């Protein structure tokens, strides 16, 4: 998905690093093999990025400059809330949702492009103060949940399914905002997907709360 951006910006001293938040390492392989990305495509089975950066969903992205400084902390990477208006039978989006979905994606990609070319001069590059203000709020419950997630995944990998699944459920209870934890949790089908009706039920339960919290970026719907 980001290959076009990589192709365009490789000469700007820029690289995409795509990380699959997939606990079953086989799961992302067919996608990676089909895409053949020229940038690193890594697999994060223990959700290390969740522990370190507060990632709770996909796609979320972090911008890091040449000196290793966080320029934009974890936020939705051009993804938009519009999918919630999808007709679940036909998978069609109403026109306004479709338009805003495209607008969100385009705005975001243009922002990445602008930063790649102009660095700190880009209006989308947050100052140190701005970046700090946009850091995710991490709680001790979240830290404990990630530890439980890691424990559960270890047990699953070593054939201890019942206890492993129990820890994943507990992890999700402890950190309900994490879609990464919930979607990798117990009750996944053989394909590794949370059953679709369960997913929609959980999304609907958000009510007015955003699935993708708003991104503070000029032009973002």
């Amino acid at each position: 998905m980001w290959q076009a951006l990589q192709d365009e910006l490789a000469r700007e001293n820029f690289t995409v690093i795509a990380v699959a938040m997939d606990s079953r390492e086989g799961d992302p392989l067919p996608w990676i093999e089909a895409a053949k990305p020229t940038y690193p495509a890594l697999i994060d089975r223990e959700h290390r990025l969740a522990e370190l950066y507060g990632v709770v969903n996909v796609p979320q992205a972090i911008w890091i400059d040449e000196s290793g400084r966080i320029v934009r902390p974890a936020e939705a990477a051009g993804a938009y809330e519009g999918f919630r208006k999808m007709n679940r039978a036909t998978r069609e989006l109403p026109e306004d949702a479709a338009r805003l979905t495209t607008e969100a994606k385009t705005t975001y990609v243009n922002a990445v492009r602008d930063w790649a070319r102009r660095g700190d001069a880009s209006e989308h590059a947050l100052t140190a103060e701005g970046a700090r203000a946009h850091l995710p709020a991490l709680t001790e419950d979240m830290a404990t949940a990630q530890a439980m997630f890691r424990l559960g995944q270890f047990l699953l990998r070593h054939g201890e399914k019942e206890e492993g699944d129990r820890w994943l459920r507990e992890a999700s209870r402890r950190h309900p905002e994490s879609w990464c934890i919930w979607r990798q949790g117990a009750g996944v089908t053989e394909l590794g997907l949370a059953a679709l009706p369960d997913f929609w039920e959980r999304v609907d339960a958000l009510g007015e709360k955003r699935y993708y919290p708003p991104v503070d970026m000029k032009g973002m719907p």
Partner: protein
Amino acid sequence: MTTVLTDTGEFEAPDAAGSDGALWLSGREAEDATGWVSKSEGICKGDICVPLPPGREQEFVRGSRLNLAALWRHLGQPAVHSDRGHVWVLAASARERSAALGSLEAPDFTLPDASGRPHSLSDYRGKKVFLVTWASW
């Protein structure tokens, strides 16, 4: 055999005893797994020393053995374990993670690609990095 999962990796501790909320490792195992060492000043890691609560030293140190679970609880860091105590996860606290992010230095990590080859974020220092998550789900 007890497996201890920490920020730096997975450690097998053949001498460990983990039950009833305690995780006793030999001094050597504790140091290898977590960097914490028992000294006269208390339990130390690098330049930091944590004095033991007076009267409760035995909860933390017995001879050369260290109870990492007690230490983790004392420091307010998450420690979780399997039902029978054969697997422990000793994690960093949210406060520590937040402080690290607050410095705005992107925390380093090492993850494998599809061929199993490890890549660290620090390998890409000197380039702008667009670190983006996705999933097959």
